[in-house]
């Protein structure tokens, strides 16, 4: 017999699949702001926040929603190799693959982009942009100056934020959108909606306000941490459901299981 908790566990596998996108008040606000900014004549939009605040899934979402209206492309994995990056970019520009051994001349690329000005507006969503080095970022800046390519740069919020502090980069960022960890109510909605999407009503109802208070406290409202914790909670519940059903309750989520999951992930210590 397959435990009901197995399905619940799989709901919280960490992914940026657009189908897993949950509409929350805060995420919808960020989406609308990003969508509006894209329509403005801006060169670069900075989307930043701590890991697990939903940057990647937001970019995915906006690409999915606007792909039929605009030329929008999502560069998920940062290409540290400059050659590969330009190949990728060129493919977007000319809409066909370049031969493998072809070297892209940067000046030629700039000129080509300038020629597209007024004719096409290409939006490139750069995820994990903190992995691009300074030289790469400088070239990205120059490409944005052609005004035929608009970049949405998503990166982790750094402690010193030296990337944003650089004068030449700062002058080109016309919009900054920050994503923060969610509030308790938003996190509760996130968990409930994810479970309800898979028709797991009873399990959703078994998570009470006190449980949510603890979950929010240990995960600090971070979606990624929340996914990890919920996955672990349902993993433990699945074990008890299959081996020691006396220790599990379908009506309420035992606090013990939540605390055990938090202990396992190191959110709390003995």
């Amino acid at each position: 017999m397959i435990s009901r908790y197995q399905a619940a566990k799989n709901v919280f596998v960490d992914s940026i699949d657009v189908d897993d996108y949950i509409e929350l008040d805060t995420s919808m606000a960020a989406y609308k702001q990003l969508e509006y900014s894209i329509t403005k004549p801006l060169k670069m939009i900075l989307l930043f926040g701590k890991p697990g605040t939903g940057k990647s899934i937001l970019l995915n979402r906006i690409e999915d929603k606007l792909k039929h209206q605009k030329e929008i492309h999502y560069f998920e994995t940062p290409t540290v190799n400059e050659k590969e990056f330009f190949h990728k970019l060129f493919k977007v520009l000319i809409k066909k693959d370049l031969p493998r051994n072809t070297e892209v001349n940067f000046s030629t690329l700039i000129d080509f982009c300038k020629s597209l000005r007024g004719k096409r507006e290409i939006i490139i969503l750069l995820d994990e942009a903190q992995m691009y080095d300074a030289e790469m970022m400088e070239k990205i800046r120059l490409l944005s100056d052609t005004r035929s390519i608009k970049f949405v740069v998503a990166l982790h919020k750094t402690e010193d934020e030296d990337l944003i502090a650089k004068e030449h980069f700062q002058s080109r960022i016309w919009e900054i959108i920050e994503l923060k960890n969610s509030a308790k109510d938003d996190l509760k909605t996130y968990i409930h909606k994810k479970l309800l999407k898979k028709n797991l009503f009873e399990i959703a109802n078994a998570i009470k306000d006190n449980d949510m208070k603890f979950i929010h406290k240990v995960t600090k409202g971070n979606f990624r941490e929340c996914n990890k914790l919920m996955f672990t909670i349902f993993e433990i519940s699945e074990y008890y459901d299959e081996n020691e059903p006396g220790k599990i309750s379908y009506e309420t989520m035992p606090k013990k299981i939540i605390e055990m999951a938090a202990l396992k992930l190191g959110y709390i210590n003995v």
Partner: protein
Amino acid sequence: MYDIKPLEKEWNKYKKKQRRPYYILIGFVLILSVIIFILKFKGISLSNLNKSDTDENITKSSLSINHKTKDINVTTKPSNNPMNPDDVFVDEKVLNSSISGNIKKSKVKIDFEINDANDPKIYKEIEKRFTQSPNSDDSMFLSRMYYNKKNYHKSAYWSLETNKINGNIEESWLIFAKSKAKIGQKNEAIRVLSKYINKSDSLEAKRLLKTLKNN
């Protein structure tokens, strides 16, 4: 999950650690309650002890008063008319300093007259005591009291008894003479008084003699 049992053990440790402050708080409250209870109990014991001490002091002081008969110095105020009841002042001394000085030196006025006059039993007792152990104070007291009560026969008798024990008590001679005169034995009174005057040359006796002779 293969590591559920170690995780359960870890959770048990976590819960114990989490509950520790509550256990400490409960323990502290219990200890505080016990201390307060003990202090209150001691306070009650002390107050009881103080009360019993006071009672003991009162008992001791009353006992000391009861046993004061031997230690009391009874002094009579010298008076021109010994027939009048004298106020007897008793000096009480501190008998036992260990009773924390609860008993203070004081003059206590004891009104023997009022009590004795109304109770003939006391005369009987003193008479009985005299027969067992003749004492000029007792016989003198009786003589005086009987004279005041106008029982001149008895007052004369007891004056005579006093003179037999101690012939130097002037008052006894004077009461004897007056008593004799009162019962109509004036000559006898004069004779006895003259005899005393020869012996003592008392001014008071001389005055009384003169009074008896003139009246």
